């Protein structure tokens, strides 16, 4: 299974990002092979619609699940539209979160929040 997490640094010892669309990197992880790689979040600087662009980026990686502490409603729509499930992390640690996910202990993220920026102006 291919999973993805928003992360603060391009390092497995870094922490999970606080926001999905506006975290600087995504960590891609293969649960079977335990291989990981990082991709830069090119949507980060987008004045508006960062969540949507970031979700598109993740969808294009062909992942099965997203692990994040929270997720904007627009990003969630794109992810769900692609059949990707979003799991709620409670630890900032990447390692712990992957471990919990593999053991089936992460709940599905049920609440999404409204976009953080509207038209990049306010």
């Amino acid at each position, binding site marked *: 299974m291919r999973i993805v997490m928003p992360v603060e640094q391009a390092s497995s010892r870094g922490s999970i990002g606080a926001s999905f669309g506006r975290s600087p990197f995504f960590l891609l992880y293969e649960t079977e092979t335990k291989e990981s790689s990082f991709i830069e979040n090119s949507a980060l600087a987008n004045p508006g619609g960062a969540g949507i662009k970031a979700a*598109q980026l993740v969808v294009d990686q062909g992942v099965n699940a997203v692990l994040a502490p929270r997720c904007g409603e627009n990003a969630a729509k794109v992810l769900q*539209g692609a059949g990707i499930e979003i799991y709620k992390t409670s630890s900032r640690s990447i390692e712990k979160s992957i471990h919990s996910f593999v053991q089936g202990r992460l709940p599905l993220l049920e609440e999404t929040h409204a976009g953080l920026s509207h038209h990049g102006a306010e």
Partner: protein
Amino acid sequence: MGLSELKVAVLSGKGGTGKTFITVNLAAVAGPSTYVDCDVEEPNGHLFFKPEYATEEIVTVKMPVVDQRQCTGCRKCVDFCRFGALAYSNSGLMIFADICHSCGGCMLICPEGALSENEKPMGKVRKWVAENVHGLSGILNIGEPSGVPLIHELLSDMNDRPHPVFIDCPPGSACAVMESIKEADYCVLVSEPTLFGVHNLQIVWELVRLFKKPFGVVLNKVLPGEAMAESFCAERGMHILARIPFTQHLGLLNSQGSIAVREDEDTRAVFLDLLKAISKEVHCEATAHS
């Protein structure tokens, strides 16, 4: 440029500074004139003029609609949209209306002709006349993310109405304010004399300089001893056009929905002087640039 050709925008860095008070009273003292309420999220200028009748026009924006059967998933539109209003996955193309700026680019770029436009109502323009003041008020529908298209519509209506035109801007310095001052010949920056007022004045001062608009400052709610805005303006060579005192009498007139220049001789004199100062400034500006 004479007063009868003038378009003046009134703006401030925050709400509650007195933009509507200044704009309404300028229009009332100017004789035949037009008042444009660009504060489309909470238009209230008409409450002072109390027009007897008004006509309304619905304003729409264009929204892309996708025909999923024609969409091949090439994602040219997704990559093109700099606002991130489109996304594509195996369930098809998604369009986020709240993010879309109605630029129409996705429709132009789609090689399959899968995108077309739909008209979506986003607000209305109310046109009214009260004595010798013509009014245009923009009313944005609740939940709409941007008033810019509505303001654009308001301003396209002002040219064939009596001048001078006084434009009551939304607060702040974001897109809606930029749209509101675009056509203005002169900008009046309203500020309170306090430290908070100075901070907000700085925001709009930066904006009008960016737009290279001639401007002057009106200090509102002036109390003796509050000199922060005075020194801020003096240090930067900003011209203070008028100082309006913070009095209970003015507060009362305003809260009753009265137009102060019609009720109070002293205030009328202040606004007549302000109008004169604005014409003089615009005249000087025109001479300097001719």
